[in-house]
């Protein structure tokens, strides 16, 4: 007997399977483990960011700054690395920077009661702007460590390879799942998203949890930025433009309610995979341009949002 609350996630997973099957039928060479793994390789950073975004949306908020924080991370990393700093210092530094950025936004959102949308929008402006203040051009990275990270292929049975980024992404996903289901922080996040007023009256640490959620998102963005730096081997202010929208789409398509309180990190994983599969299908097709991706994702987004709305209206009508 399937629990009703898992319905949106089930839909997501089925959708992914259907799409992958569609691709396999239509194109030779599609149905292979490597094609599947490539989904992870190409979208590792999106996956990391989306995990952070999942927590924010579950808590009832939203974070528009993630793409910009990624860009800022690449910029700061590139500048420091090329100036001779060691990766062992730079990487922890940018992670702390990302987390602090999120922390400040969370504090402003909670204590001054300003809508998360506007605060994180300002955050987005700020981060992008800081990028350009540092340098308006691309900074290429030729540091040995980074290059090694970019090129290392981890072998898997059956002649398949994945990159280090995938390992990092998968770890983040597992940590995310653990946090969400086995820690008080995670459960409090769900509670706040369900009914913040009740959570307060039930004695839960609302302020602390809300701020931590945004700090976590900032941390994920920074980590995704590090992974992105491996991928692109450069720092540039225009990196990851619009990635916040991709992250939000992944989370929603993954079955998380934008109103908060309901959602699964595992669902977000499939949300990211679906975006990847759409892009893969389109590139296999060859004739369609990549802008079809945006339309299909927009359409999926619409269907999922309406589905969410119908489910919630039916639920409230039963009482």
């Amino acid at each position, binding site marked *: 007997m399937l629990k009703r609350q898992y319905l949106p996630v089930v839909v997501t997973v089925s959708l992914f399977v259907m799409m992958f099957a569609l691709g396999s039928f239509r194109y030779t060479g599609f149905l292979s483990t490597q094609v599947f793994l490539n989904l992870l390789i190409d979208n590792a950073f999106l996956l990391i960011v989306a995990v952070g975004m999942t927590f924010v949306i579950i808590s009832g908020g939203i974070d528009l700054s993630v793409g910009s924080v990624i860009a800022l991370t690449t910029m700061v990393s590139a500048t420091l690395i090329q100036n001779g700093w060691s990766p062992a210092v730079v990487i922890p530094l940018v992670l702390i920077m990302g987390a602090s950025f999120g922390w400040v936004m969370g504090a402003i959102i909670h204590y*001054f009661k300003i809508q998360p949308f506007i605060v994180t*929008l300002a955050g987005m402006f700020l981060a992008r702007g800081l990028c350009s*203040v540092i340098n308006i051009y691309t900074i290429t990275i030729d540091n040995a460590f980074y290059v090694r990270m970019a090129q290392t292929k981890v072998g898997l049975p059956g002649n398949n390879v994945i990159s280090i980024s995938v390992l990092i992404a998968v770890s983040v996903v597992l940590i995310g799942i653990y946090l969400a289901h086995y820690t008080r922080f995670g459960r409090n996040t769900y509670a706040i998203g369900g009914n913040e007023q009740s959570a307060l009256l039930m004695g839960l640490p609302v302020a602390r949890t809300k701020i931590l959620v945004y700090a976590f998102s900032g941390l994920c963005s920074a980590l995704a930025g590090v992974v992105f730096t491996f991928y692109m081997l450069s720092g540039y202010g225009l990196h990851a433009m619009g990635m916040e929208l991709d992250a939000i789409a992944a989370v929603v398509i993954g079955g998380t309610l934008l109103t908060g309180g309901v959602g699964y990190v595992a669902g977000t994983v499939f949300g990211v995979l679906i975006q990847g599969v759409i892009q893969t299908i389109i590139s296999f097709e060859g004739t369609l341009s990549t*802008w079809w991706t945006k339309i299909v994702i927009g*359409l999926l*987004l619409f269907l999922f*949002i309406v589905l969410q709305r119908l489910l919630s209206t039916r639920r409230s009508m039963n009482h």
Partner: protein
Amino acid sequence: MLKHHLFWPLTVLFALLLFNFLYSPDFFSIQIRDGHLYGSLIDILYYGTPLILVSLGMTLVIATKGIDLSVGSVMAISGTMACLIISKGDNQSLLSLVLIAVGVSLVLALILGLWNGLLVSVIGIQPIIATLILMVAGRGIAQLIADGQIITLSSTTYKYIGSGALLMLPFSIFITLAVLIIASMLTRKTALGLFIESVGGNPTASRLAGIRARAVMLAVYMFCGLCAGIAGLIVTSNVSSADGNNAGLWYELDAILAVVIGGTSLNGGRFYLTGTLIGALIIQTLTTTIYMVGVSPETTLVVKAFVVLIVCLIQSESFRKTFSQLWASRKYRTGEEVKRHA
């Protein structure tokens, strides 16, 4: 006078203009060349018209406690559609062709606005989320229309929309003025403005008072779509081409900023069209100022970030309370002590 809602925006605008003047004394100079007026001030108006238009539409949506994130995409779609139609014609400068192109694009923009309005008022989806869909999909749709290409035109008639001269000023300024006047008349001379402010101020009470909240919301989203459509025409006309990816990029954020600076609260209720106009001019002047001072244009983003934050903090009651408590405790501490011992 200090309390007048236009006081602070106007002050900021004058301060910026003054700064520009001090930095570059011929800032205010206007020359006439080839029957056109030229000068920095004209430039600000000229480049600012699309933003002003989009911001006007956004004002009414925000007044109903809503928001429209899709305006940039709608701009791209409408501009692309117009260019497509014109590019298919043999004589691209034929007036009737251009008029058909304009007509179709604007109808399309209205339909997109209607789409947003239906999602918000009939299906009941939160405005941020509802308009997010079109924001994501819209660029794809624009590309679909353009078949993935950047359409370039050589139509003098179409170019007129954005840069043609009427009374020596760019035609787009007159379009914007017309929209501003129509919007003002619609909202102030009819009861529409009152209904919008009522629905945004207290939707429950408005419905109990007999206002058709649903119809009001549909109307404002359609108007917002229309404004974005017109802005898209102007932008593509200025460059005589349509780039589905970049046209109108990040316009929604600037528009929201303009509305907020202009005095309309993000929580809905009272709205100020003239305030938005000044807000948009401030943003445009800011861009010009930064460009002139020689700082990289991307720095505008940092400044915008702080402006948004400061305006929102001022609008936030919690902030005002904390601030006034701190202020009061500094001044009146001794006074309070006296009271307690009395």
